[in-house]
């Protein structure tokens, strides 16, 4: 589904992502881990087209997507959420969800779009809230709306950038169930996450980055026990 080869991003003299390679198979749920500043979010931004890559190649669903603008990548069936929630407050809640439908690969607008948007809102637990303003939503509900916007087009692949950060334990439970539901429906998911409970529960496989390079890739339990990974997170004394 997704193939990343020698992906590199430099910001001036800083190498944020340095020659990263990995594949994600159809239907897989993969965790992308690493300490703060290790380049995880940059990788997500490079895949979604938010940032142009410096070097390397990204293939999605058999097509080369590096160098394509984000709206083209979105139309190919790749959706994402953002590290800090990003919504469009001048649109009411339902219209936030209709937006990607109206500009998707197969544009849907009008009553059909309303139906599908309401279904997506219901799926994430916002049933009946479509007519309200975005300002009425609390933090978890904003996250829900962002997810509804990402999944309403039924994308082939979903990028979640710390989507579960900042939730309380009950909310986290709900959030994990939601992602598990998407996984069970066959969606391919790449998620950046710091909450290990969620990573262990949802991701059979993990990729770990440190200082811009990939340091581990494999089954979650093996990767988390890896000496390099522990060192990257906790320092040498703990190995």
């Amino acid at each position, binding site marked *: 589904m997704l193939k990343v080869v020698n992906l590199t991003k430099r910001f001036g003299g800083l190498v944020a992502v340095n020659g990263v390679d990995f594949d994600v198979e159809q239907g897989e749920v993969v965790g992308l881990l690493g300490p703060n500043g290790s380049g995880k979010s940059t990788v997500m931004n490079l895949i*979604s*087209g*938010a940032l142009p890559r410096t070097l390397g190649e990204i293939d999605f669903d058999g097509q080369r997507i590096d160098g394509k*603008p*984000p*709206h083209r990548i*979105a*139309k190919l069936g790749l*959706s*994402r959420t*953002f590290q800090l929630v*990003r*919504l*469009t*407050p*001048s*649109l009411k809640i339902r*219209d936030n969800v*209709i*937006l*990607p439908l*109206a*500009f*998707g*690969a197969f*544009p849907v*607008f009008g009553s059909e779009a309303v139906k599908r948007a309401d279904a997506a809102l219901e799926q994430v637990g916002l049933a009946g809230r479509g007519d309200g303003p975005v300002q009425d939503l609390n933090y978890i509900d904003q996250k829900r709306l962002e997810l509804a*916007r990402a999944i309403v*087009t039924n994308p082939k692949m979903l990028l979640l950038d710390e989507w579960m950060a900042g939730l309380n334990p009950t909310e986290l439970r709900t959030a994990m169930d939601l992602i598990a539901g998407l996984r069970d429906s066959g969606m391919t998911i790449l998620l950046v996450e710091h909450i290990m409970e969620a990573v262990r529960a949802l991701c059979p496989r993990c990729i770990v980055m440190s200082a811009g390079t990939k340091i581990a890739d494999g089954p979650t339990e093996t990767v988390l026990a890896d000496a390099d990974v522990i060192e990257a997170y906790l320092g040498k004394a703990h190995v």
Partner: protein
Amino acid sequence: MKTFGILTFLVLAVGMAVLPLGIGDYGHGVLVGMMSYIVLASAWALFSGPTRYVSLATVAFFGIGAYTVAVLADHLPFGAILVVAGSIGLCVALLVGLATLRLAGIYFVIFSFGLAELVRQLITWFETSVNHTLGRYIFIEVSTAQIYWMLLGLGIITLGLRWWIGNSRLGLAVNAIGDDETVARHAGVNVTGVKLALFAVSSVLITLAGAIQAPRWTYVEPSIVFNPTISFMTLVMALLGGPGRLWGPVAGAVPLYFLFEWIATRFPDQNAIILGLVFVAIVFLVPGGLLSLIDKWRARARAAGEQAHA
């Protein structure tokens, strides 16, 4: 509700169309001025309202329209001149848009202001060094009332376009762009394309507004038709009414036009100072526009009603 809106719009359009019948030539002039600003403010808001790209290039396109008429007046029928003027406006808008719509916020404002000055200086240079004259005379047989009706037609087209955009998926896209371009892009919106299209449509309407009323001046020169005050007035009018709403720019243009006319005749020397004060007052007192006050009053009335029931 929708049919009610369309019906009101039709009645209003017919009412505006018969307005010149009972009054004399001075009245026609006033109506032209008012309708001109209704068109300018509405066309300005068509692009700048939802995208929040504040443009001061209004007078660049307005002047291009007027100058095209001045140059072609003796060579083509008026209708053909309007087509040429609109096409020139479109070409300039596409060129400028492609080059600048990637600029963010304040850089765009400054660029758009510079553009108006650039066009004015270019034409001044061309006229003085190539044609060796500065002014041009326009002799076209069009009555003031006819100009008013043409502007009214342009106004109806402008409002119709704004209504259509607001109800189409384009409306979702432009509002999303105004909020967060990154989100719009990741939702599949070709952000640059949408901004360029709206900027072009808005610019063509403004160019036509300038071209249609050019015959009224008889004599034009760059400092008259590229007067930056026109850009600022348009902006202030749209902001006063609320650029995000269909009727906002109209609600701002009508009272301010009459206010500025009155100021210009009563205090001709302090005109600019008072204009500046009005600008500041609007930004401070009604940041959301006049029509947003209606929402506020409604909300307050509803809250009061609920209290009364409790």
